[in-house]
């Protein structure tokens, strides 16, 4: 590279493309977004179902359509992209970024600021340690989605879906659309992992049975999957004896959770939050490595792509400010604490330099009117209910924080009213 890169974005999914836009709009000269795949868009390339962009564009788009609009904006803003380019190392201390690309070989870059937007990956079967054999026919829902939607191949004819994360629900419907059978969706928790609207539109509309507090306890089959044993679980998630049932299937799709993908973050000595699995960030979406920012599912797994794009814009803008020396040296670092009903949230610190949205999930469903709030007196909003599968938000304005020079802690929580 002959010219200096002001802001380098790693990953051209929804967060990364938005970060590129955010950085240019803030005034960064040279903004480059790297993408390891051959095309832009990240996982949304394979999300060909509608349901994206209701908040941002006030209409229902498919994943590729949603991305197309952002990519168009990014081109208009002068964001540069480089595809087929993988970042495989960030050097501790110098933040030198090492890339590989078939045409360009192996190169290093030293940008003014970095935005991490690598997204997340799916939890594999091993993470939940189900006993049994190891045949073919077991896929994470996203891998199956890639096979069906991108490659045009069917992973199987009769599927069981374990976990009720959104991709699993979407894939249940997709398998039906493509002519396969779906025996049922099994969720170990007593509440669904995904959005209610996906339960309705992907399972209920197609008569796919949905079993809560039930899990797969055994895998059967030598070469190809032949079946699974399912069983109900007690309150400690231990299978209940006598409830076991053998289900014949040739495919097991897993939607058992998403994990932020932070190999590079660890290389760069960024603190990773033990609960979110993503970098610890402040409201500027700055990590504990000051020159590195992060946004989207690499930070915390979101429900809606609209939120991911919004956060990408913030991180890109912050990175641009940093590269231009516009972030004050001694910004405040007010910790955000989660109350008793909060399982996870991000950001974990507030500077008061920008308006911010704190995204959070409750530990368990609260099926009654409740309120989400930030103390001391920063935010309060009534809710009809709060569910772990649907994120809640707290919005705090920069002026509110600036008006409280002694503020040393913000507590967020959701409580029944």
């Amino acid at each position, binding site marked *: 590279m002959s010219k200096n890169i002001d802001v380098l974005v790693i990953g051209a999914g929804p967060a990364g493309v938005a970060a590129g836009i955010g950085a240019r709009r803030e005034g960064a000269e040279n903004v480059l977004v790297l993408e390891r795949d051959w095309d832009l868009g990240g996982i949304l390339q394979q999300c060909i179902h509608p349901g994206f962009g209701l908040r941002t564009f006030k209409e229902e788009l498919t994943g590729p359509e949603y991305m197309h609009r952002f990519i168009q904006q990014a081109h208009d803003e002068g964001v540069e992209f480089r595809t087929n380019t993988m970042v495989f190392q960030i050097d501790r201390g110098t933040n030198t970024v090492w890339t590989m690309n*078939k045409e360009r*070989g*192996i190169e290093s870059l030293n940008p003014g600021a970095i935005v991490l937007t690598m997204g997340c990956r*799916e939890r594999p079967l*091993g993470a939940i*340690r189900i006993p049994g054999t*190891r045949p073919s026919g077991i*896929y994470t829902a996203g891998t199956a989605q890639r096979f069906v939607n991108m*490659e045009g191949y069917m*992973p199987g004819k009769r599927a069981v879906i374990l976990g009720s994360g959104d991709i699993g629900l979407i894939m249940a419907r997709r398998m039906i659309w493509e002519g396969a059978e779906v025996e049922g969706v099994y969720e170990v928790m007593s509440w669904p992992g995904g959005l209610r609207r996906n339960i309705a539109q992907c399972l209920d509309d197609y008569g796919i049975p949905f079993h809560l507090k039930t899990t797969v306890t055994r895998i059967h089959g030598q070469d190809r999957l032949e079946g699974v044993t399912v069983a109900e679980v007690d309150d400690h998630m231990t299978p209940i004896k006598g409830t076991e049932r053998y289900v014949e299937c040739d495919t097991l799709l897993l939607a058992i959770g998403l994990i932020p993908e932070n190999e590079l973050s660890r290389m760069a000595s960024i603190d990773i939050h033990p609960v979110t699995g993503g970098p610890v960030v402040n409201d500027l979406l700055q990590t504990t490595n000051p020159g590195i920012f992060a946004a989207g599912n690499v930070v915390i797994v979101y429900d809606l792509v609209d939120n991911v794009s919004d956060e990408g814009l913030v991180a890109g803008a912050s990175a641009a400010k940093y590269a231009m020396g516009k972030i004050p040296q001694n910004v405040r670092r007010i910790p955000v604490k989660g109350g008793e009903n909060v399982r996870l949230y991000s950001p974990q610190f507030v500077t008061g330099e920008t308006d911010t949205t704190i995204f959070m999930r409750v530990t368990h469903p609260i099926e009654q009117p409740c309120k989400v709030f930030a103390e001391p007196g920063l935010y309060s909003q009534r809710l009809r209910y709060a569910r772990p599968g649907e994120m809640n938000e707290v919005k705090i304005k920069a002026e509110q924080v600036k008006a409280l020079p002694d503020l040393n802690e913000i507590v967020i929580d959701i409580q029944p009213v």
Partner: protein
Amino acid sequence: MLRGEKFFMNYDIVIIGSGITGASIARELSKYKLSIAVIDKASELPAGASRANSSMIHGGFDDKPGTVKAKFCVPGNKLWHKLNDELDVHLDECGSYVCAFSGAEVKHLEELLAQGKANGCPGVEIVSGDKLREKEPNVSPEIIAALWSPEAGIINNFEAVNAMIESAELNGAKLFLETVATGLILDDKGNIKGVTTNKGEFLAPVVINAGGVHSGEIASWAGDKSFRIIPTKGEYYLLDRTAGETITSFLFSCPSKAGKGITVLRTAEGNLMAGPTATEQEDPEDRSTTPEGLAEVLKGARRLVPKFPVNMNITTFAGVRANTESGDFEIYALKSPRGFVNAAGIKSPGFTSAPAIAQHIAQLLKEELSDRITLIPNEKFTPERRNIPRFLYMDMAARKSLAENDPAYAQIVCRCETVTEGQVVEAIRRGARTITAVKMMTRAGTGRCQGGFCCPRVAEILSRELGIPLDEITRHGGESKLLVGKTKEFLLKKGAVSHE
């Protein structure tokens, strides 16, 4: 590697089984002017007990002096410390501790120490629990003493088996995969003439039985019913690399009658691992994990390392080892039929012993079967074999030059283990035909996402390089196809779409 075609060929030697034992014998015998066929029923190597074991290179204190095992373990250990360079295989010379929790167990350590000395196992000593914890701060505070064996190590068993057989092939041996031995052929004098297989007859005056968990059945074809294999399952947890920092040495529980007990180790590639159980079973092919087995491993692992971070588990697996009633190896030539040699009943410390067993087999052929076969040194024997380049472990200059020579080395296929397309293509060039074969040879798919990301990409590369459709690619051969057809064809077959 060859497969698929029918073979009716004459060899000097047929080796049944290409686990570490068969592969080591093949390589050792390739030092002589012999035509060697190695047959294995698997679609990729390693497949049987050589794939799923603790990957330990034992110090040699555990075997009773006078046993066959004791004869081969310490020499095998010494050979591996040279072979790892020759064959370009990862060997972590980490040393091992046997941990004692009670006075009775300390007494047992003393017996092991005496045994180790009798076996010529160098450097073994008993250290205090505190001394152990200086080096391994995460072990249980209740451990009062440990037997240290500095020569023990951990090998990358996937690499080792492939390296061994590749080296044999480079020196002229032929490997036939997906080739199932079904019986022996005897000549009119009742001596060995060859092996029948699903692919045809392999004729040879000498047949070596390295059939692992099936070696008892194969021996019985020759009328040898002197030993019986008791298939013994061992279950394991494999954890993320980031958990590998928990320990640095191989940790044993104090052995009992049931076996060496649960161990906790860091693999040669840095993953934390725990296992195995020792459950006897009828079925030699049942490699399923069980709730009971996994619970037992976890309990044993937590006893050694109380904070064993099982939440970082990435997969569980089981291997079946070829236990014998005597507990010892069965290595000898039969008087009748002449030409049949057992390298059977090989279990722990089989991986360690394999190169020494192989040397012994060569000697045995010279001394006992010279009427059937003549071992003339092969002057062209090349001991060195180079591994597929391992991008992850290279310095930046080496990576750059690799990528300049072949751009495929500048394309990542497996993100978790940083495996490039160049490595996958090279594995296919060296014979990989399945997703698992690529995994064994390159580590693509062994990481924390367990192939979630790279499986479709490896499948595409296999399809492209081999010129076969994507829906013909299998996970591990046989009926283990990844996909069941194209989406629209599938719908048409179901009649869900009308032809208008």
